[in-house]
């Protein structure tokens, strides 16, 4: 599977409180959450984001709370992939569990600029920056996680196992 989109770039330690502030956690409706995604970091995000866009960020993306509402809000915003230098571990699990594509690639996350057009090939881990004409290689997922990703999340994986 491949995705291609315009990059929205952020820095280090993007926490779950700015991805989806707790004041909106009295609902778990993905559309309502998406309407407030990134609100305390980038108030224009919800109005600007287009389906297929890619988020690129620095280290420790998604740190803080365990709220699954954070990857749900990002996914419902139409983001096709998050590329980061590193992810906070609960966010990493949650993204895989709900089927939000994420890739860890310090080199890409460093080099990619806001507005670049980037393609991610999840099968090979190849990331291509069409704007800059450069390519990078993502850290591959362990086989077990690839199975969860193929089942479109943990629920599908458990159902498949019966």
């Amino acid at each position, binding site marked *: 599977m491949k995705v291609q989109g315009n990059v929205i770039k952020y820095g280090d*330690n993007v*926490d779950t409180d700015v991805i989806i502030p*707790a004041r909106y956690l*009295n*609902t*778990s409706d993905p559309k309502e959450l998406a309407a407030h995604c990134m609100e305390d970091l980038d108030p224009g995000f919800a109005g600007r984001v287009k389906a297929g866009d890619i988020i690129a960020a620095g280290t420790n993306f998604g740190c803080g709370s*365990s709220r699954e509402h954070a990857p749900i809000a990002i996914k419902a915003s139409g983001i096709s992939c998050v590329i980061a230098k590193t992810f906070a571990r609960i966010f990493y699990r949650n993204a895989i569990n709900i089927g939000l594509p994420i890739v860890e690639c310090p080199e890409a996350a460093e080099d990619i600029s806001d507005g670049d057009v980037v393609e991610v090939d999840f099968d090979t881990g190849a990331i291509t920056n069409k704007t800059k004409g450069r390519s990078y290689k993502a850290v591959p997922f362990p086989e077990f996680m690839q199975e969860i990703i193929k089942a479109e999340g943990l*629920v599908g994986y*458990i159902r498949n196992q019966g």
Partner: protein
Amino acid sequence: MTGTDTKARGMTMTQKILADHAGLERVEAGQLIKARLDMVLGNDITTPVAVKEFRKIGRDRVFDKNKIAIVPDHFTPNKDIKSAEQVRFIKEFAREMGIVNFFEIGRMGVEHALLPEKGLVVPGDVVIGADSHTCTYGALGAFSTGIGSTDMAAGMATGEAWFKVPEAIRFVLTGKPGKWVSGKDIILHIIGMIGVDGALYKSMEFTGDGLEHLSMDDRFSMANMAIEAGAKNGIFDVDEKTLEYVREHSTKPYKVYKADEDAVYCREYVIDLNTVKPTVAFPHLPSNARTIDQVGEIKIDQVVIGSCTNGRIEDMRSAAQVLKGRAVHPDVRCIIIPATQKIWKQAMDEGLFDIFIEAGAAVSTPTCGPCLGGHMGILAKGERAVATTNRNFVGRMGHPESEVYLASPAIAAASAVAGRIASPDEL
């Protein structure tokens, strides 16, 4: 070297607990395992999503109705209609599944203060909770870690969770903490030293003869904030204090694990507790730590004393010790939130509420409330709070342009009196 196999390396405390719960002789860092769960936890924010995912899995019952705890504590007592609907939804699920440990208002508490108090977590347990501060129970020598709602759903259905076995950083604590230095100061000092991702994907194992000077409440407060260094879990050696706590609170069988002598750690820090000073984390990261003498003049509008980090009885006593016979500064709102009903009653019986009320502080029923900007003390634009909570991210306690400074109950109480961030020694 003790074994006959010279290649086999020792395991950390966390690795030994995980190996046992995966039915394996030994595990190594990086290995993916499935582990048996002793407790699965959720709250009023994360459980609704978990229930929806549980329904998708298609099981008609949970793996064990005694090994699930649902604690509505974040927006409770319900702050608005939507929150009330969420709590009703999970209450109906708990009733349908016969879940024993559903905690209603008047019998509840902030989840990570409540579960140990109710004896639901004991040494050697493996616990997952759909709340990042589930790492708190490491204070009891359990492996406990935060996960999301889908993992909670899978845990409720199967009684298992997958883990990547973590490597560990060892913190050897020596010496005795000085006056006004609590577990909170020590953990803020550590996070300031290693950063908010300093222990990413790793265990933080606390050991050393300094532990004898740390109460269980100090240890809960430290293990609680392991996540603020990015850690998978924080865990303490089990000693006589731990066992005394367990005997007092639980009848569950427990098992004491100890790291192997030749366990491999990726890093080791030796910390002389005598050198740690009262510490405050400045906005907007828990790692922006400064010692109290480096704080400068920071005027404040609000103080919050409570939360899963510092809402326990010793925290109440520490605040009372500072507030006794003093008055909260005219420009400051001081909100005190005992973390559970039991702590609330104990504080009342000890006369601490008289001290708080006479000082001009407000005392709330147990709730996470202001910690995450839910209710019971939201900050306006430009306002500053000193809080004994665990996070000071942008907008955490209210307006995106408000600020949160993290500190111990003693520093928070002294700041409430001074109207600026202050040490009790300055009053």
